[in-house]
């Protein structure tokens, strides 16, 4: 049982991280749309873009990780959800495509007119994607996704009040997180007064999110009684209380300009909300499908836990490195690092024998790969090919070739056909 819950906990942790990290990126897109026009609006938009550009891809990957862990650990759950909720998930996907496209385009142009089109597309897709993902959460939470291949209704499963409110909540929590994070980031450039601007936006988003949460709870009372009961009792209630307290603390900290800690409080509030949802519907993933029934065999679950544990050892230090650089402003455009020290001696000449040795390795690889019937022969062949490629590149020396003046300008080719 612990194993089954461990993998579910990994998925939930991934979802929480996706929400508090990528959710804030979506929120930043929302604020770019609401930034207004003129120089002030451009400042706000540029600040939002600068803060998330280095981290958005890493934040986005959490979603991919959650999906892969779910289909590995709980394949039936995954298959049922993705077939019934095909429409909102597909719309979320369209939003993801356009967001990525906007990042690709953003590096390519400085022109304000083109930037406006790109920013507008970016903002709209930054609203569509979290809304649709939130609606999917609402559909699952209100028990509208039955077990089976597209067994639920393609539309009514996510166009009901609970799901739609959940979608709006996803947008507003993202906006809240983004406002708090961006206010904190704006502290690095205090002259522009951007922190005050995002402080006000944080208050507004908090009020809207609170109202939406209460409305959702009210609707769930009749529309999704199981969810309502789960959220008003036991663990679910505890999570809701933690969420509310953390949110209020976050707002208080924002009010007194303690943005650094407010960031953590805001993230805790959102994380607790997701945990509350998980607690409210335990032990069921879908109606009639318990975690126990849905879980893959122990072999798979152990493999996932081992893989994630090994991955985490590499991942978290890397993430910490990225966020430390990003939050310390060391990736900001106006930042200048140390200049490189270059060696004074001439570049070493490439060994003359590299070409012949490379050819010899290649022939060895050729013979072993074609005529050897044992795996060891193939392994040696592949290694020989790799060595041959490195030696060949050394022999070719593309950088030195390119450094030569094109001989045709002065001297005709020595003899034979000229290439």
């Amino acid at each position: 049982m612990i194993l089954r819950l461990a993998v579910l906990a990994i998925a939930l942790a991934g979802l929480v991280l996706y929400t508090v990290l990528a959710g804030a990126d979506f929120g930043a897109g929302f604020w770019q749309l609401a930034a207004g026009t003129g120089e002030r609006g451009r400042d706000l938009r540029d600040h939002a873009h600068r803060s998330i550009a280095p981290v958005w891809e890493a934040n986005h990957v959490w979603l991919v990780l959650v999906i892969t862990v779910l289909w590995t650990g709980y394949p039936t759950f995954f298959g049922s959800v993705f077939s019934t909720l095909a429409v909102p998930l597909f719309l979320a996907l369209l939003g993801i495509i356009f967001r990525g496209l906007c990042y690709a385009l953003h590096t390519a142009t400085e022109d304000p007119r083109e930037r406006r089109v790109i920013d507008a597309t970016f903002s709209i897709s930054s609203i569509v994607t979290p809304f649709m993902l939130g609606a999917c959460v609402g559909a699952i939470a209100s028990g509208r996704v039955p077990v089976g291949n597209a067994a639920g209704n393609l539309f009514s499963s996510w166009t009901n009040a609970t799901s739609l409110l959940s979608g709006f909540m996803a947008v507003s929590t993202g906006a809240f997180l983004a406002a708090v994070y961006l206010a904190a980031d704006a502290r690095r450039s205090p002259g522009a007064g951007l922190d005050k601007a995002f402080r006000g936006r944080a208050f507004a988003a908090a009020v809207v999110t609170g109202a939406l949460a209460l409305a959702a709870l009210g609707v769930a009372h009749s529309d999704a009684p199981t969810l309502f009961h789960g959220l008003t009792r036991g663990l679910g209630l505890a999570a809701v209380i933690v969420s509310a307290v953390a949110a209020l603390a976050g707002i208080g900290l924002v009010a007194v300009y303690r943005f650094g800690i407010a960031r953590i409080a805001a993230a805790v509030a959102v994380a607790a909300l997701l945990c509350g949802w998980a607690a409210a519907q335990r032990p069921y993933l879908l109606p009639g499908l318990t975690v126990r029934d849905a879980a893959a065999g122990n072999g798979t679950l152990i493999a996932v836990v081992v893989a994630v544990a090994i991955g985490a050892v590499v991942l978290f230090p890397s993430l910490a490195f990225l966020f430390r650089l990003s939050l310390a402003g060391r990736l900001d455009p106006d930042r200048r690092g140390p200049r490189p020290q270059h060696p004074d001696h001439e570049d070493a000449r490439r060994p003359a024998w590299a070409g012949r040795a490379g050819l010899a390795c290649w022939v060895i690889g050729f013979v072993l790969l074609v005529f050897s019937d044992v795996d060891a022969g193939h392994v040696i062949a592949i290694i020989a090919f790799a060595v041959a490629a490195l030696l060949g590149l050394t022999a070719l020396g593309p950088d030195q070739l390119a450094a030569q003046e094109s001989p045709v300008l002065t001297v005709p080719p020595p003899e034979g056909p000229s290439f």
Partner: protein
Amino acid sequence: MPPTVSQLPPAVQAYLLEARQMQAMSFMVHIPLVCFGIAFPAMVAFVEWRYLRTGDVLYRTLARRWTKVMVTLFAAGVVTGTVLSFELGLLWPGFTGNFGSVFGLGFAIEGFSFFLEAIFLGIYVYGWDRLPPRVHFVCALPIVFAGILGSFMVIAVNGWMNHPQGFTVDAQGRVTDIRPFQALFGNTYFWHELVHMYLAGNMVAGFLVAAAYAVGRLRGRWGRYERTAFAVPLSVAAMAAPTQIIVGDWAARDVATEQPVKLAAIEGLSQTANGVAEHVLGYYTDGRVEYGIAIPHLLSLLAFHSWNATIQGLDTVPVADQPPVNIVRFAFQTMVGVGTLLALLAVVYMFIVWRYRRLPITRWFFRAVAVAGPLSYLALIGGWVTTEVGRQPWVVYDYLRTAAAVTGATSIPVGFGLLAAAYAALIAGTFWALYRLAKSPMPPAPADPARRLLQPSGGPGAQGLTAVD
């Protein structure tokens, strides 16, 4: 555990073909970006390494400009890759729902390599000039590593789909006794696919980048900057192209042993026979290849290294289990034909460098490279069509039919249309971004006149050869 609840039964789907086409389209957009993920970071890192070694600002300019290209392509790769992972659920819930616990681990690990790539790309891109130069260079290495690890995992899953193992199907048709490590990494079948794809990635990225500068050369842009940007990717592609033929031969022999029906479709062989001839060109109809050039005994010789080896025909399985022959055959012949031409081009390049110690100068060579870029993409698609359509009608070879894996959702045609439109925008936008990046002005030469080695043949964009051609 109740026997039925953890199973996703097949659903009725009128749009199976559209679902397959939608998947194929998503794949065709994503796969060239994968090639850049595999090969391009290493090229950028190489150029940056030259900068650190020599202090030549030209290398720095090139590496920085390529970095912007890398960001653009990586952003497109991230979203198209996400589309593929969504589609495994949106289009094929029967596949993930029933076999996810067998192969899913590969994608979970791939997720981590994706993380590494995204994290260090963010640092690398935004760390130019801001981090200490050596630290910045070292940040490129995890990107190179992650590109290889990611393709390793995805190919492991594809190898498993073609040659499934590491599980048992019990009397009720449930997948049990799952051994995911054995399924993915104990599989002897996927190694040739991995090496083949890794070389293909280097060829496609190398030839495409070189092609862009070959076009520039034909238009007279041939300063030292352009020559470097041309020679580095072309040399990488030239290393891979001849080897690819040998590795392809290895792959074909593995297919002959493990998936004889796929080989029969590739060759258009309807009846099992001994000492089989290889047919070049032509098309398959009524159980034989029409208008093809037959080379006696060659197929037996290639597949089993024996003059009279028996080759299984399509007749060894019922008609319902046979893949479509002509698509697979055309795709295969395209791949082999183009691959051979590319290898020839690589040999010509290496010969010229060896004989004259300089880059080629004839316009025909640059025309050939300009065509080689798009052709290498064509060969890549041909290869994947061969293996993926050749696997039909199975998604998990001999275990799960594609028709049993497809979703029951009726939204496929609309989704297909919308995704096609979104991808048209994505492709147009990406090309526009690349065009704009290419047009952006070069940084001015540094004021420091003592800086040695700088651009001996004039700055980037110098009109190198116009007087002669």
